[in-house]
């Protein structure tokens, strides 16, 4: 199971959980699992645009980026820039 690390706002919305084990092979599955576990998070996962860091590499808007069984995953705000 991949380890998802939550911090800041997301941690609040996840009822204070800072680290959760999630069974997901890719980003899409991860987001679905997360919405199911934390309904409070769901609207934010849809409204804000998020990037997912899988073992340090950042993926933006990439549903099918693979998540390994021992991956460390972070949910972070999407980055745009000028």
């Amino acid at each position, binding site marked *: 199971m991949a380890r998802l690390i939550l911090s800041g706002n997301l941690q609040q919305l996840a009822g204070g959980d800072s680290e959760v084990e999630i069974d997901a092979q890719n980003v899409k599955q991860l987001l679905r699992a997360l919405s199911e576990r934390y309904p409070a998070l769901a609207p934010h996962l849809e409204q804000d645009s998020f990037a997912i860091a899988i073992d340090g*590499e950042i993926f933006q808007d990439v549903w099918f980026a693979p998540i390994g069984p021992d991956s460390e995953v972070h949910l972070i705000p999407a980055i745009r820039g000028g």
Partner: protein
Amino acid sequence: MNDMTNPDVLARHLKIVGTRPSRPDGVDKVTGRAQFGADMYLPNMLTGRVLRSPHAHARIKSIDVSKAQALKGVKAVITSADFDDLPSEFIPAGEMMVNFRDMTRNVMAREKALYEGHAVAAVAAVSEAVAAQALGLIEVDYEVLPHVMDVDEAMQPDAPLLHDDMFTIGVEPTPAKASNIAKRVEFGFGDLEAGFAKADVVIEREFTTKPVHQGYIEPHACVANVSEDGQAELWCTTQGQFIVRAFCARLLGMEVSQLRVKASEIGGGFGGKTVVYLEPLALALSRKACHPVKMVMSRTEVLQASGPTSGSSMWVKIGATKDGRITAGDALLKYQAGAFQGSPVQPGAMCAFACYEMEHVRIVGFDVVVNRPKVAAYRAPGGPIAAFAVESVVDEIALRIGMDPVEFRLKNAAKEGTRAPYGPKFGPIGLVETLQAAKAHDHYKIPLKPNQGRGVASGFWFNIGGETCASMHVGEDGSVDLVVGTPDIGGSRASLSMMAAEELGIALEHVHPSVGDTSALGFNFLTGGSRVTFSSGMAVVEAARDVIAQLRERAAKIWEVPVEEVEWLDGRANFIGAGEPKSLTLVELAKSAGKTGGPIIGNAAINATGAGPSLATHLVDVEVDPETGKVTILRYTAIQDAGKAIHPAYVEGQMQGGAVQGIGWALNEEYIYDKHGHLENAGFLDYRVPVCSDVPMIDTVIVEVPNPNHPYGVRGVGETPIVPPMAAIANAVSHATGVRFTDLPMSPPRVLDAIDTEQAA
């Protein structure tokens, strides 16, 4: 697209990548032939002009356009009534989550005008003079409301409210009372109390910065042409033709494919041309008038109603041990969003401590609306503001414990495996390398005279990838058309065609790049976030490899050998199987393309991922006139990790340009409003960007720590150069005067006042 990573490309000898050829658009740009936003003229073209609010905050009770409508030569008049209202929801528009309720109100005020210069109506007429006269005939009945300009004042419970339906996001539970605070963000980890307890030195300070404008020399400009059947063409100066299409189609209720957007040559953007202002108005006017409509902003309009980046109020606290280890960092960032939510406080908070290995860290940010123009991205949005505060405190701590500031940063520098304050661990990054280069640089050893000071600061930017397409057409003579979807804002047609020629193994002069309009390619995210050489580069390489695969197949067919026995090297297919060596050049294969299966076209449509952060360290020497407070920049050196510099001259150019924009931000650029919320310096006379005689040569050192996720190791370089300058200069001025400077800009009156106050104390 990590699967594209190709170590042997990096290993093999590069013939073109890393050289400094002339840019393909060079001649057009030096002869005046290049066509920018305002250079388009169409038959029957009308002139569009915008009526703007004279008030910082006012309810629009009514607008009477009848007199303007009746004026001879006026072909169309529009107000917010000509645009559908849109719900307040964040929906994806070309890769961005956008609240179109805010966007439609920003391009044309509805219930209220929220800043001086806010568009309230627009006209299209047969001439500039008639259009100007028509504006004077539009009668707007305003109810002037109290306004608020300062971020701290706007956060007060009794502050005038811009939006009575704004309830702070990011605090649980969501407040029941409306406020100007759109959002609270927080990042970090560890135990701050424990961290600060371990510190021998703790320094905390408050900082403020003023909004500054991107200052592109080309004002916003466009020509819209909507035909009677609703087909629309738009020519405009933008960082992203596909983003403009996505925004305008939604604002005007069109299908995206009804609207074809062609990006003109762009006269600077720096993030400020990633949004729409005139474009939807010109389309609405053209749709109403059934004529082409041209709209060009004046410099006053640019400064009153476009950009800028946030002003801010910040607090930073850092603790460290005597031997120079940071034990904890805490920061509070309050950023002005302008009239609508969406300041870059979030990326600012993520950047704040990103240069350092932090065990205990917290950054809290607030996104606050005020009666100023809605901010737009400006080069590393949010980063430079936070870096000014954090790098100033870092400098002060190094000074306090008597450690060289470069040494101190080296001791704490983030490196591969370091956990970023926003969570994930860094891959390979080059901060340490830039600090070592700074230490070794002659600049760092030059002795200083009285009233002179030296400052150093480091900076971080994430860099991004995103949706990108490229198309490569091999002509019948073997020359190559390269079509990309990202506007060329600083020489990207050069770097992209260099990568194409390198891959194909042909001379650069045979590759002819162009920026396609929205009908030429699939969706491309805009030119921004330092993504073009990275992302479009990836797409170009993939398209080239697509072409090469086809060329190898054609050669294999001709020779009747398995394709595995054909290799592509230096622009030719070679038979490497047993028997007579055979070879066909690109030109030969192109000639016979028809007979061997038809034209040869390579395509790539990707969502580029794996962008590598770029880090930088800047050195600056200043001299301060103790009697007038005037600061002179004596020497400047910018050192940055480019991963791999495809065209080193344009990488240097990004570093030099960012540094000088930073000099302006640090010393003289600011928005000056009177007590009525009227901008007093809406022009280049008193909005003081650096002029040629203000600055020295900007020395550069390119460090190359390859990004493993890019076929050539590229990292974006455009954003990072503006992150360190303000802190570096503030640190230098502080060392020259013995006074710590925490407020920007450090203009002569402010500097002299600080020196005198210090001496009086």
